[in-house]
């Protein structure tokens, strides 16, 4: 006389913990997730199609709007790809400033992740602390390029401008104060019993599955794979800096938390070295006003805060790309979600979405 049956539940697209407009169709057995269908595309703007109608300079602002939480990396990956396509060598000072801004962006992006992830799980305080420090970084970006979110900060061949006076001292100040601030977050979370209960053993992704699903970035490293593009295929001047690549062991949400926390410390190390060795000189290489790359195609990847950001450009010798493809880490990492939440509770789905650190602008393009 009693019977159970599967129940279909829609999560999103307006659910606050889906970080945007992600829709999940969960097949539930009680509170246990039996199957998940990920439905995306609510933010699809057809950027790849648009890029085919724009010249190379006009595309950079579009890249800002893909992953708007870490727009510096979208800029960086894009301009580096065009530079690789054309064989442009960028002045050293520009490379160092790019590294400085990019690593600051990694910290800012991880702070957004930490704040929102903790908020999803119920730890509200961390959010305010994280955004306090993120504000310092956004102020630095505003002083550098005038924008706080969509920067359009680099140019093909270098930078449009040098850093403003006093900027280096402000970055030094940030590098000095940030470790203490990071300790504050860790005091709140690392040994917090509720935090441990909500993250330990949740959303396990074994290393072979992670590689097979193409998962990259902190999620891959938390599964114990020592793979970071800054080390494996160094771009810009990353081969000159000393830094460690943190890896996890338990492949769960808690390890992904630890890996990202350690990555912020390593970013500070890179910042410190880049500040100490910042060369003098110009910031812009000699490039023609009209960018017309030769016929050919390149695929270039950079290590963004969410994982591997790939840019594939096919050039037919025109001033517009023939085909532009953005390989966004959020899109690929999200694919592993059904695998990670299978057999978990509904509440854990929220934790896993948070730990994957997706940005829907990047998923849907």
């Amino acid at each position, binding site marked *: 006389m009693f019977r159970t049956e599967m129940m279909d539940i829609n999560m999103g697209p307006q659910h606050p913990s889906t970080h945007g407009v992600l829709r999940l169709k969960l097949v539930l057995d009680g509170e246990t997730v039996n199957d998940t269908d990920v439905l995306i595309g609510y933010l699809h703007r057809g950027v790849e199609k648009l890029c085919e109608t724009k010249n190379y300079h006009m595309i950079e602002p579009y890249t800002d709007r893909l992953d708007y939480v870490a727009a510096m990396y979208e800029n960086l990956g894009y301009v580096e790809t065009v530079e690789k396509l054309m064989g442009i060598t960028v002045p050293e000072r520009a490379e160092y400033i790019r590294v400085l801004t990019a690593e600051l962006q990694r910290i800012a992006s991880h702070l957004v992740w930490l704040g929102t992830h903790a908020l999803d799980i119920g730890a509200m305080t961390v959010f305010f602390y994280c955004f306090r420090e993120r504000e310092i970084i956004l102020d630095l970006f505003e002083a550098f390029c005038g924008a706080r979110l969509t920067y359009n900060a680099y140019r093909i061949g270098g930078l449009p401008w040098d850093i403003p006076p006093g900027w280096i001292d402000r970055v030094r100040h940030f590098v000095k104060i940030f470790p203490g601030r990071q300790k504050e977050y860790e005091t709140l979370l690392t040994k917090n019993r509720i935090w441990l209960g909500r993250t330990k053993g949740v959303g396990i992704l074994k290393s072979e599955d992670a590689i097979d699903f193409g998962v990259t970035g902190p999620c891959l490293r938390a599964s114990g794979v020592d793979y970071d593009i800054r080390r494996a295929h160094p771009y810009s001047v990353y081969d000159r800096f000393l830094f460690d690549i943190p890896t996890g062991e338990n492949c769960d949400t808690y390890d992904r938390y630890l890996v990202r926390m350690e990555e912020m410390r390593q970013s500070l190390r890179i910042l410190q070295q880049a500040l100490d060795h910042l060369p003098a000189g110009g910031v812009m290489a000699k490039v023609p006003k009209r960018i017309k790359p030769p016929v050919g195609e390149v695929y270039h990847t950079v290590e963004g805060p969410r994982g591997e950001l790939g840019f*594939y450009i096919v050039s037919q010798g025109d001033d517009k790309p023939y085909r532009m493809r953005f390989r966004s880490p959020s899109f690929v990492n999200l694919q592993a979600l059904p695998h990670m939440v299978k057999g978990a509770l509904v509440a854990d789905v929220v934790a896993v979405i948070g730990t994957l650190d997706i940005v829907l602008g990047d998923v849907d393009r």
Partner: protein
Amino acid sequence: MSDEIKPSSTPPGGSSPPEQSSATPPAPAPPPAAPTRPAAPPKVDLSAVVQSPVLDALKGKFSQAIQAVSYHAGEVTVLLDKESLLEVCRFLKDEPSLRMNYLSNLCGVDYPDREKRFEVVYHLFSISHRHRINLKIRVADLEPAPSVTQVWRTANWHEREAFDLLGIPFEGHPDLRRILLTDEWQGHPLRKEYPTKGYDRDHLKLR
């Protein structure tokens, strides 16, 4: 690409960075930078042939399947027969000396003037050996491309996207349906003949 971190001008530069944009007294700094910059760009040979252990292995085992090899900016791209793609992919993934276990990107490119209008491009990396190679196949309109989801699970969404935006069907795909656009969408926007502003939008003044 020198390995030295410190250029000769670091000591004067290190003391002045905060004000360097307004006051530029370190006159010795520009001269060392100036001669290297103009000299570098013209020397880059973008289509230089580069060595690739992956290509050597492919040439040894699948020489008849390779239609063409192209080089650009240090990347090797191999154009393959459609029929042998799956076999080549399995070999690349399972061969212990290659272990191309990570499919970074998969996408289609539309060349409407060609007899086989679509190219499907695979960007492969090896996480353990740090190798990389790009593979390509060509298919005509409505001609199915072999799905590599059995080799790399990550291909699933990439192939769905190529199907959605370009209309390339993938044979053997477990769940081939649209992914970014709605199910009832007409046409495939990334095809070259598809207008950027979309169909039935002629009243809109868009460029």
